[in-house]
């Protein structure tokens, strides 16, 4: 394992120290328990957005804290969900009197810890709504599994709902919008290499030099199948075919196309992927009217990418375009 760390056990704590120093004045990093808040929280009268999850997916979620996006984020240990005391502390502190929306990725641990936090917060009289994001088409959605994982759509939901909250919309409306984003988004990813969790010290799984894992999760969980490595164009066809067929996206749709890097894939390759995706969708009569290309929801040092499509309408487009001012996503501000 070659990593820029001091001690594996200190990675998250030292990372948060760095975040606090690098973004002083914009973010406040709390310890014991860990949570990150925008410096001007609570914003009176505004619905507050709180998210969180295991560390190792940066810039998600801490990098999306700021005006126009999240009010607070709760980082867990590497690939481990945060605990309810973190979400409870964050929820109490950022509540501006209009209630708090928890945006939760559909992983068993995340869902349970957030549900517990919501129970505890409601016991204290706080108004909390939760929306679980589950957009990964690689996982069969049935009553007999933990269900689809929450992946790329989480970033889009946090941005769009953040904008809606800034407009002063009530909690039920922001939560409803979050569900709309979840319902209209689909994603799928591919891994070219494994990732290495610092505490484990070795790759989470073995993948041959000429292999790829299609349908990977963001923690190195298995996907749909292992296949021989293919060209970028062929990989995009595989991912986009599954994504488009699932919603389904149809000719005439306008979409936001999000090509996300898993951590170790250069932006150069992500743009190669984006070009292939653009061609693929064009041939299907689907128009990309907004795009996002970069590493926003990573899996430590995994190489690979995910493709997310969101079917847009005028309202979602306007909220996407609204100003955002966070370390990870910034425009119009």
């Amino acid at each position, binding site marked *: 394992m070659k990593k820029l760390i001091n001690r594996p056990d200190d990675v998250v704590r030292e990372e948060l120290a760095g975040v606090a120093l690098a973004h002083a004045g914009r973010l406040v990093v709390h310890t014991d*328990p860990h949570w990150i808040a925008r410096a001007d929280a609570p914003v009176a009268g505004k619905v507050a957005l709180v998210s969180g999850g295991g560390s190792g997916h940066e810039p998600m979620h801490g990098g999306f804290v700021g005006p126009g996006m999240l009010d607070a984020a709760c980082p*867990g*240990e590497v*690939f*481990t*969900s*945060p*605990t*309810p*005391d973190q979400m409870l502390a964050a929820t109490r502190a950022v509540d501006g009197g209009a209630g708090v929306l928890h945006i939760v990725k559909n*992983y*068993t*641990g995340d869902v*349970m*810890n957030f*549900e*517990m936090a919501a129970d505890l917060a409601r016991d204290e009289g706080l108004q909390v709504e939760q929306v679980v994001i589950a957009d990964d088409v690689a*996982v069969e959605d049935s009553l*007999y*599994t*933990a269900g689809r994982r929450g992946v790329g759509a989480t970033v889009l939901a946090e941005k769009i709902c953040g904008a809606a909250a800034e407009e002063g919309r009530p909690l039920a409306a922001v939560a409803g919008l979050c569900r709309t984003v979840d319902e209209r988004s689909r994603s799928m990813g591919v891994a070219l290499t494994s990732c290495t969790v610092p505490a*484990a010290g070795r790759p989470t799984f073995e993948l041959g030099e000429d292999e790829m894992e299609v349908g990977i*999760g963001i*923690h190195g*969980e*298995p996907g749909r199948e292992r296949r021989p490595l293919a060209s970028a164009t062929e990989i995009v066809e595989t991912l986009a075919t599954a994504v488009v067929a699932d919603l389904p996206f149809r000719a005439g749709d306008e979409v936001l196309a999000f090509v996300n890097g898993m951590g170790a894939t250069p932006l150069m390759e992500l743009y190669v992927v984006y070009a292939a995706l653009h061609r693929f969708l064009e041939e299907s009569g689907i128009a990309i009217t907004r795009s996002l290309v970069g590493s926003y929801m990573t899996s430590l040092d995994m190489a690979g990418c995910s493709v997310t499509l969101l079917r847009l309408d005028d309202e979602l487009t306007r909220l996407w375009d609204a100003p955002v001012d966070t370390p990870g996503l910034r425009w119009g501000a």
Partner: protein
Amino acid sequence: MSAAPGAAGPASGAARDLVDAAAVAAWLRAYAAAVAERRDELTELDAAIGDADHGVNMDRGMRAVVARLAAAGGEGPAQEGPHGGGPDEAATPPPLGPLLKTAGMTLVSTVGGAAGPLYGTFFLEMGKAAGERTALTATEWAEAVAAGVAGVQMRGRAETGDKTMVDALLPAAVALGAAAARGSAPAAATREAARVAAEGMRATIPLVARKGRASYLGQRSAGHQDPGATSSWLLLEAAARALEACGAAHAPQDEPMPAADDPV
């Protein structure tokens, strides 16, 4: 073992037919010791079908619970030692609800993953059921455990056969209630529950996981014993041992948990 009338000394914190705070504290310590001893084993079971952190996470959580117990015990004589001393004339026996809730909240804030909320909810719901009572009869003890198991099911939305903690816990809670209804003392009833939990744990081996991270594996999850069911069996086994020790005239100190040829 059956309860011999009059065997429990009047100064004992745990009469044989009652479960009091000293017995619950002894249970928590026994569970912490069992988890520490089997930490790597639990993690290896988790590596096969999960994310290889169950033993480490539970060990961290139960160490924190024991530390919390020790801190609380330092403030008053009533909590001193698992079953020694007992309350002096000045101290009222501590209620069970707050003790169990403290254990639950400690697990919730230290374990993480899915096991934190699940085991945390188990103790929180047990604590709610026990309330301000300072000692539980066998029936009340069984009801409290059943409330804890119902909490786990509510939190995890799991049924038996899903290859989870519930496969060990639910039949054990049923067996505990049945034994208590037949008039068994808490220790004997809990011994029966632990035996049933072990059966439930072993029965997870051929199952295909339908909840949690293991469910992503589909058929590939069959053939592996569920790590959550394993730590749940340990929970019942620790309870049986603690109650047996509290009921005995001379409790064995630091007796190890079952050896590796026992069911794991």
